[in-house]
């Protein structure tokens, strides 16, 4: 998009800068400054202290190792699934394609409960194996590296699946056709034509996965065993009341994620690829011809989908199980509707769902609008340095653990400030939508950016030469082409915000009490069934919004 007239460009620049200043720069400067203070003056003492601690250093390397392994595993699961469901048509494809995104709808807190009931050492799977093989002891324990990576892969592969899927929908099938007609074999086509076109999507997915894994807290807490990662060290330091150390470890965590971002970008720069003018070829699903391949794809689809759906099914089961009755049996022995009637008769039940829905919708839509500003601006920037700085700043909130984002916003806007005057954000309804926006807008920006980079610049150019205004070009050319990516990213942000817990718990107020807090309360009282029932209703809402979004996406894709 070369010729953006000055006036819209200045507006975009202004909006982008204001949001970054208020949401990212100002709140985080304080964090960095505190980490560089010791006994009241500037000093690197906190960093030196950290370097001298064996466990803290071990945690840094463990975190990196866990994250790299997570990215690799998620790519190995997510990309083949995306290919299977996006490229081939076989019986039940649509159902399986939707099921494959299921881990997205598994809300945190109850998601982990379901996972424990399913895969834990006293879970359904372990008991089935134990009974079948007549073992004395449980066949495995859900602790350590294996458990952690299993859970990470399960919850994070959707980044690859969703983004690679959206990428596949955008790529130019004409190129592959041309390649094929020139005699290229399928593997050569894959590596020379399809994957290069997918690179922006895969890099976006890899980066999001890496950062999510770095900032992951619940999984190592619950399944990590003796695997010590940086987020746990931060938590421990905070519980000790050692704020300077907690902040220093936070800065290091963020720095690692941002260095990863720079590395990824470097690679991205060398593999930039714009689809040619989308001539001729509307992408189509290749029906799998021969009976055996068709059957194979069907079976793979069934196995993957069942495997991925099991935790959700477990959650459903727990929500109907009578609390306290399920101890040594493989499946719950007694069922009841009491869990649902219990929460639905509470006056607050409706409110928490409404709160979560409205706050997530506000945050996701704001993120969508803002992403268009950022991405459009970024594409008109001529200097690479400023482009990189922009995407760096945008990704900072994603690189930080949720608690840190919440705390820094609460600290910055908890009293009258330079930037907001006498308005105090803390204690109002709006603090959570703002935090959700900040935490999850990087998802939307990355997804949209990946889409926009695949658009052939000659298309808007052609529209321009035909006399279309900037707005017309945007509305009629760019938006339809970037639509699938934008909707996928926005949906991802919306769904994740719906179940958000770690930041919410620090700053929510009674008027915006989200679902996750209600779930946590039930868990504290050991009402596992009621917690699961909340989770099931939340999941149903998420599933519904995904179906709506899939409709939108289908109608929006060219």
């Amino acid at each position, binding site marked *: 998009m070369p010729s953006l007239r000055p006036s819209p460009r200045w507006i975009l620049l202004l909006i982008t800068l204001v949001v970054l200043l208020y949401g990212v720069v100002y709140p985080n400067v304080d964090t960095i400054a505190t980490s560089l203070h010791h006994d009241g003056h500037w000093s690197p003492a906190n960093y030196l202290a950290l370097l001298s601690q064996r466990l803290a250093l071990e945690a840094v390397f463990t975190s990196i190792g866990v994250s790299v392994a997570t990215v690799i595993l998620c790519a190995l699961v997510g990309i083949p699934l995306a290919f299977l469901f996006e490229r081939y048509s076989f019986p039940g494809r649509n159902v399986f394609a939707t099921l494959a995104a299921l881990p997205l709808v598994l809300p945190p807190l109850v998601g982990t409960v379901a996972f424990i009931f399913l895969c834990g050492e*006293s879970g359904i799977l372990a008991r089935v194996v134990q009974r079948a093989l007549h073992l004395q002891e449980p066949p495995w324990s859900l602790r350590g590296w294996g458990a952690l990576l299993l859970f990470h892969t399960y919850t994070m592969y959707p980044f690859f699946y969703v983004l690679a899927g959206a990428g596949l929908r955008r790529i130019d099938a004409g190129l592959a056709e041309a390649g094929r007609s020139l005699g290229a074999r399928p593997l050569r086509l894959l590596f020379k034509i399809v994957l290069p076109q997918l690179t922006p999507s895969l890099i976006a997915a890899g980066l999001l996965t890496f950062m999510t894994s770095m900032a992951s807290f619940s999984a190592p*807490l619950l399944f990590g065993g003796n695997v010590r990662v940086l987020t746990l060290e931060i938590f421990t330091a905070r*519980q000790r009341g050692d704020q300077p150390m907690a902040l220093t470890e936070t800065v290091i965590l963020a720095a690692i994620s941002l260095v990863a971002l720079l590395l990824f970008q470097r690679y991205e720069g060398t593999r930039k690829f714009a689809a040619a003018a989308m001539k001729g070829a509307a992408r189509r699903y290749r029906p799998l011809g021969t009976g055996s391949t068709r059957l194979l794809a069907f079976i793979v689809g069934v196995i993957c989908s069942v495997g991925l759906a099991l935790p959700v099914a477990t959650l459903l089961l727990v929500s109907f199980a009578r609390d306290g009755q399920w*101890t040594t049996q493989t499946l719950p022995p007694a069922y009841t509707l009491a869990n649902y009637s219990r929460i639905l008769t509470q006056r607050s039940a409706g409110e928490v769902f409404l709160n979560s829905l409205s706050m997530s919708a506000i945050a996701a839509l704001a993120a969508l609008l803002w992403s268009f500003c950022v991405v459009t601006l970024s594409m008109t920037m001529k200097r690479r340095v400023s482009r990189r700085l922009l995407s760096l700043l945008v990704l900072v909130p994603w690189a930080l653990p949720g608690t840190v984002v919440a705390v820094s916003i609460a600290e910055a806007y908890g009293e009258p400030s330079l930037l907001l005057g006498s308005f105090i954000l*803390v204690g109002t*309804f709006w603090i959570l939508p703002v935090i959700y926006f900040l935490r999850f807008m990087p998802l939307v920006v990355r997804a949209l950016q990946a889409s926009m980079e695949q658009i052939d610049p000659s298309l808007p150019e052609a529209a321009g030469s035909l006399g279309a205004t900037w707005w017309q070009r945007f509305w009629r050319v760019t938006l339809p082409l970037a639509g699938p990516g934008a909707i996928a990213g926005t949906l991802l942000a919306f769904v994740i915000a719906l179940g958000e817990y770690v930041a919410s718990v620090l700053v*929510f107020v009674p008027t915006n009490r989200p679902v996750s807090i209600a779930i946590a309360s039930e868990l504290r009282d050991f*009402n596992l069934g009621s917690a699961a029932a909340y989770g099931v209703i939340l999941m149903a809402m998420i599933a519904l919004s995904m179906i709506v979004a899939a409709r939108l996406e289908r109608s929006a894709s060219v």
Partner: protein
Amino acid sequence: MHLPRKERHAGDSRSQAGAGTLLLATLLITLLLVACSSGKQSATHHLLIYTPHGPDLLVHFVARYKAAHPETEVQVLDIGSRQILERIRAERNRPQGDLWWGAAHTTFQTAADDNLLATYRPTWADKVPASARDSQDRWYGTYETPEVIVYNSDGVTAAEAPRDWDDVLDPKWRDKILIRNPIPSDTMRVIFGAIIWRSIKDTGSPEKGYDWLRRLDTNVHEYTADGTFMMQKLARREGLISLWDMPDARLFKEQKGLPVAYNIPTSGTPVVTEGIAIVRGAPHEDEARRFYEFVTTTESLVQAAQKFYRMPVRTDIDRKQLPPWMNEPFTRLPLDWDVLRQQGDDWLRYWDTEIRGRGSRH
């Protein structure tokens, strides 16, 4: 080829516009709902309570309070007690909450030392022992929770269950013990603290206590992330023995129907006091005092005992009205709470870096 494509494009822009309208409509409806929900402010009195108590107990007392004071809008923020401490600390320049109902007295004392609590002397101030209140009236005890040894009553008979702290170190419990991660848990901090303090008292150094924790570590099957998971794993026999508090163990056994039982350690057990306090600078301090008094009347305390397994601290309660198990005698382990509070973090840090998870490797 040309015609269908044109049509498709026309369809695209229509559905595009449709999508846009839909998104906008959602946003507008949402904003409307938000405006409506924040608009209902009919009550004349307001009260915001921070509490870790679960929904069962809260719903009961808030409903009773509202019946007695219909003019008051009671709002509750239900989060863990250490999260409450962090929140009140963060809000110190502009307090939001009025009343803090529920946390171990060690947490309250930390908050009091940080100057986060207001002084208030309840009408029943002289009805609690000196150990269950702050000398400067910043917090008062409501319920007390002795710590106990919990076991799975299907997997372990009463005869073989450990009776005292040192019994859990027996090699026959190797890989059978579940311990809740002590770092974020007041209960576990107190139990570990009591072990270390015993060592300091007897030998002048924490070394013997660390040894005890090291031997415990060899028997530990898992350090669980929180109390709920710990109880669940105990009920499902991932382990057989745990250390936890008596009221919870009772509640899990009788109300939730889990196969658990407990022994009160014969050599004595530390007793944590659960407290209540008014936030310093509370926006609705009068209302907070009213609720404070309301949930600490002898009548309310008896209800909490009968329905929610809370052992009252007040000494002027007719003990016959309490469930019989609350009247069973047990030995209290005297503890220097100040030492525990000031050094507890260091002990835990040592445990975390040098002891945790190392026993099983040897």
